């Protein structure tokens, strides 16, 4: 007799589970997403139904990840929608500024309460010498991303870059949109909202691009990032003193690539999901380790956040301090990167990360003229050799800050550095390569792909757009099979080379 369906289990699939949000790449997500896509195709002619189905699914998606915090999403939508309307309607410039400032304070107040209360309390307690008991504040997942997304709307209205939308429905979709809800990209109202009412059309190029993004996203996230971090970099970062300096160094270079593959892999999947629903979102990464300067890096890494801060924080600050010239710009850089650090989390490691980047940038700005003059004198100013050297140098500066991105505390950070400088043991490298060939191959592959010309990527997408659907499906199936092999692979055994 066939087993009866366990309705309790089935119901659980629809309920909030702290340990099981609907992440892209899980089979449950795939199941729900296919259902949404089918509704989408069936109601292709009925725009309202399509929009409501997306809003409904996005709310469900957030509920699965954050439970009752779904109310915060609603609150954020109401606050920013009406604030946008008022800013636009008010004639007085002072009044506009007052509404904008108040709304930003409320937005940031909510964000700061959930994310930083304990961090600030701890600092206050440390100074006053009291006992610190952290308050039990749960963090609503994705809050930094959707708060910034919502704020872009009111700021763009204030800057007269857009007019507010009349449709609360469209605005909620902008805030709720599940592909970019939890981890960005932080889309702008000015590019996103006009796409909502547009007719749903998928070109061959869209399908080819989506296929490319899914394949690259799955490989980056599940094959490279998850496998290498689980079997290598996490272990070293959690117990740096158990490993030799050479392993610590290798883990640092590994972690830089893992961090990129993890975030950009997730973003690729988000972009593909959005694309299949007819939405083009901001791209978030452009081969960041090809940057020839730190400023160039910030045009290539987490682009939606860096342009957000550039347009809404750095530029206004820089302009208001312009009479101080270079000093004013330095202050603007310093403040912006302090916020960049803090935005990533309530931890001193992130604050130091931001501080280092601001020092790099200010130093680079202050010495630019002299360096250019020096390169001209040597006759290498626009040479390829100089460019390669600059990329190599920038990359190493970045890797140094990447330690701070991954390490749990400043104490661990100093442990890693001390292992590298006092307990290096270069001979372990060969043993390591022999013991973990897969890790080395994966990292080597990731770095190699990273430095291939961007035009190869464009050509691949073109090719994928032209091949028959059957071949496209076959490619996807092969990639999924490959990913599953890595996802289900057993953990690599620990080896402590120093013993």
């Amino acid at each position, binding site marked *: 007799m066939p087993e009866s369906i366990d309705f309790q289990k089935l119901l659980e699939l629809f309920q909030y589970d702290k340990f099981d949000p609907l992440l892209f790449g899980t089979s449950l997500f795939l199941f729900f997403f296919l259902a949404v896509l089918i509704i989408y195709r069936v109601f292709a002619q009925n725009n309202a139904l399509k929009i409501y189905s997306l809003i409904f699914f996005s709310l469900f998606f957030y509920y699965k990840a954050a439970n009752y915090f779904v109310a915060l999403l609603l609150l954020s939508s109401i606050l920013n929608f009406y604030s946008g309307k008022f800013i636009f309607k008010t004639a007085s410039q002072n009044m506009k500024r007052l509404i904008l400032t108040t709304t930003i304070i409320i937005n940031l107040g909510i964000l700061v309460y959930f994310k930083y209360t304990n961090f600030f309390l701890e600092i206050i307690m440390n100074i006053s010498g009291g006992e610190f008991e952290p308050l039990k504040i749960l963090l609503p997942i994705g809050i930094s991303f959707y708060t910034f997304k919502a704020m872009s709307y009111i700021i763009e209205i204030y800057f007269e870059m857009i007019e507010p939308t009349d449709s609360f429905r469209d605005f909620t979709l902008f805030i709720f949109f599940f592909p970019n809800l939890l981890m960005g990209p932080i889309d702008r109202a000015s590019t996103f909202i006009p796409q909502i009412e547009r007719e749903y059309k998928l070109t061959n190029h869209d399908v080819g691009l989506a296929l490319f993004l899914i394949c690259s996203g799955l490989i980056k996230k599940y094959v490279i990032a998850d496998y290498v971090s689980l079997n290598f970099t996490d272990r070293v970062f959690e117990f740096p003193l158990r490993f030799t300096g050479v392993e610590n160094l290798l883990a640092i270079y590994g972690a830089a690539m893992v961090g990129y593959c993890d975030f950009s892999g997730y973003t690729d999947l988000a972009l593909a999901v959005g694309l299949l629903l007819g939405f083009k979102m901001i791209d978030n990464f452009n081969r960041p380790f090809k940057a020839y300067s730190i400023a160039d890096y910030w045009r290539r890494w987490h682009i939606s956040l860096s342009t957000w801060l*550039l347009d809404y924080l750095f530029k206004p600050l820089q302009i208001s301090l312009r009479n101080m010239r270079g000093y004013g710009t330095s202050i603007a850089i310093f403040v912006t990167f302090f916020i960049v650090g803090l935005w990533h989390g309530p931890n001193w490691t992130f604050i130091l990360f931001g501080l280092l980047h601001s020092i790099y940038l200010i130093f680079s700005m202050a010495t630019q003229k002299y360096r250019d003059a020096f390169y001209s004198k040597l006759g290498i100013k626009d040479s390829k050799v100089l460019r390669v050297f600059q990329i190599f140098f920038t990359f190493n500066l970045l890797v140094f800050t990447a330690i701070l991105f991954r390490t749990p505390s400043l104490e661990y950070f100093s442990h890693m550095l001390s292992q590298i400088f006092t307990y290096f043991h270069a001979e372990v490298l060969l043993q390591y390569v022999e013991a973990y060939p897969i890790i080395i191959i994966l990292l080597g592959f990731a770095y190699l792909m990273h430095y291939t010309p961007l035009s190869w990527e464009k050509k691949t997408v073109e090719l994928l757009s032209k091949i028959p659907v059957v071949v496209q499906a076959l490619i996807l199936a092969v990639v999924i099979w490959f990913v599953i092999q890595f996802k289900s692979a057993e953990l690599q055994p620990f080896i402590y080379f120093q013993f």
Partner: protein
Amino acid sequence: MLSERLIKVLNKELNLSDFNFTEETTANQVPGWDSLNHINIILAIEKEYSTKFKGIEILRVKNLGDLQKLIDSKTAQ
């Protein structure tokens, strides 16, 4: 129409000679006009026209056409 005077200031600040500036040109299309250099260009324009822009006025400028209009509105006063 962009004035010769504005183009002269831009060429001087950006060390350019034959770049084709139009009303639709945005900062990121011009070589050397990055976010760090931006402020020097604004200061040079303010100096050339002996005027002072408000912060919000500069932030609302989307392209060179807007910039020219802003300058015109200031010099007409």
